[in-house]
């Protein structure tokens, strides 16, 4: 059972209380973007086997979206942080790097 701590209300929520929202930090390009950029935004996904950053919603709690760092190969959760972040927080990245020395870092 996956348990994520909601960064807003502090509740340690099990996955029945949450809705998954797939990859985080997708960048939407403006009206002047190329077709390739828009295709990337819409469809191309990192889908890593290992460290992944993704969106979750505390649906049956405070109802807010937040972001989580998780290992897709072991289901280990590294931490959660607010959805207003444009990149994973430095301290969380350091924590992941300590646990996964082979991790190439957030790109």
């Amino acid at each position: 059972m996956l348990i994520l701590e909601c960064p807003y209300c502090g509740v340690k929520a099990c996955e029945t209380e949450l809705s998954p929202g797939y990859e985080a930090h997708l960048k939407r390009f403006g009206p002047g973007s190329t077709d390739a950029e828009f295709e990337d935004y819409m469809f191309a996904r990192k889908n890593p086997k290992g460290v992944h950053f993704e969106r979750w919603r505390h649906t049956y709690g405070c109802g807010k979206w937040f972001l989580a760092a998780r290992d897709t190969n072991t289901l280990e959760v590294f931490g959660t942080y607010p959805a207003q972040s444009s990149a994973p927080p430095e301290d969380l990245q350091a924590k992941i790097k300590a646990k996964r020395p082979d991790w190439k870092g957030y790109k």
Partner: protein
Amino acid sequence: MKRYSVFAIAKEALNYHMGWEKAWASPEPKKQYDAIIVGAGGHGLATAYYLGKNHGITNVAIIEKGWLGGGNTGRNTTIIRSNYLQDPSAAIYEKARSLYETMSQDLNYNVMFSPRGVMMLAQTHHEVRGYMRTAHANALQGVTTEFISPARVKELCPILNIDGPRYPVLGALWQARGGTGRHDAVAWGYARACSAMGMDIIQQCEVTGVRSEGGVVKGVETTKGFIGCTKLGVVVAGHSGQLAEMAGFRLPIEAVALQALVSEPVKPCMDVVVMANTVHGYMSQSDKGEMVIGGGTDGFNNYTQRGSFHHIEETLRALVETFPMISRLKMLRQWGGIVDMTGDRSPIISKTPLGNCFFNCGWGTGGFKAIPGSGWAMAELMAKGEPGALAEAFNMWRFKEGQFIDESVAAGVAH
């Protein structure tokens, strides 16, 4: 390859069954092949088989990280049907279904194809309209299906409760020529036929990199060293994203877990496959008597081949109203497979940015039924370098063009 037949059994019976040869060889890899297929699951082995049978290319290696047929080919609910809405899907799944009909004779290996009939229940008015539309589309596509009444549903599957208060059965889309097959036998049969054509099936050999120069693939790095090839076919389902990364591009694919489970064995009680898409569950009875039950996918990226427990609970809870008898059944085993989901829930059989590298992936939750058709289309693509009529619509650039083959809407459910 010694043919399997009633005479072979009689002969071996006199010989205490000591004379059976191994179904396939396990050779060490050669330095260079005309074609390498990564992934010895059903789709990969079928691709290799039709490369040899239809196109005469037999200097082929099939490289497998684990053991052959040990991925999703061994982890599905063995349902075979072709009642899809969109023309490209109906064409390739119907090709696959028709190849299943003669597969045992073709491979000289009993794949136990059982055309027992597949019934997709309509439990809302929306579904009634949707399946009537699919039945009309199927008529135009040459796929034999019909929309049947609740009374006929009850006649075909008496254990169904058609008067449920929440999910009454309002009709069903019935494909009499759909059914089930023996999933392992499909992989084993293809492997035996490939091996007999002189192809090398290399198990316990993980691909760790794709070596390319100037946009042309030279071969693959593996745990057994570098293996060169003229053409590379990647048919690895859940791990397609990893292989694409090694090859230097991204795919519109997310890997998620899909679970299935079986009950304790009971006496024969249903001789059709029933899918209840509104409640997200489907069920059939295996030859051993187990009720084979599948549900929906988990909603997050996952490579562990384990799913979330609550999804099983949801599937069973929803199915209990439609199949009251399962409320007292004990569930024996549960398993998960890693499925590769595309944006439009349709597969990718495609050329790639690398000239001699081809991908067959994105079958998501509907791969087993497609194995022979998928292999047929992929073999044609690899042999000719251009897709044939079956594969053309499934190219990976359809997402850029917006030419989706939108089966997620057509089925209203993971399929």
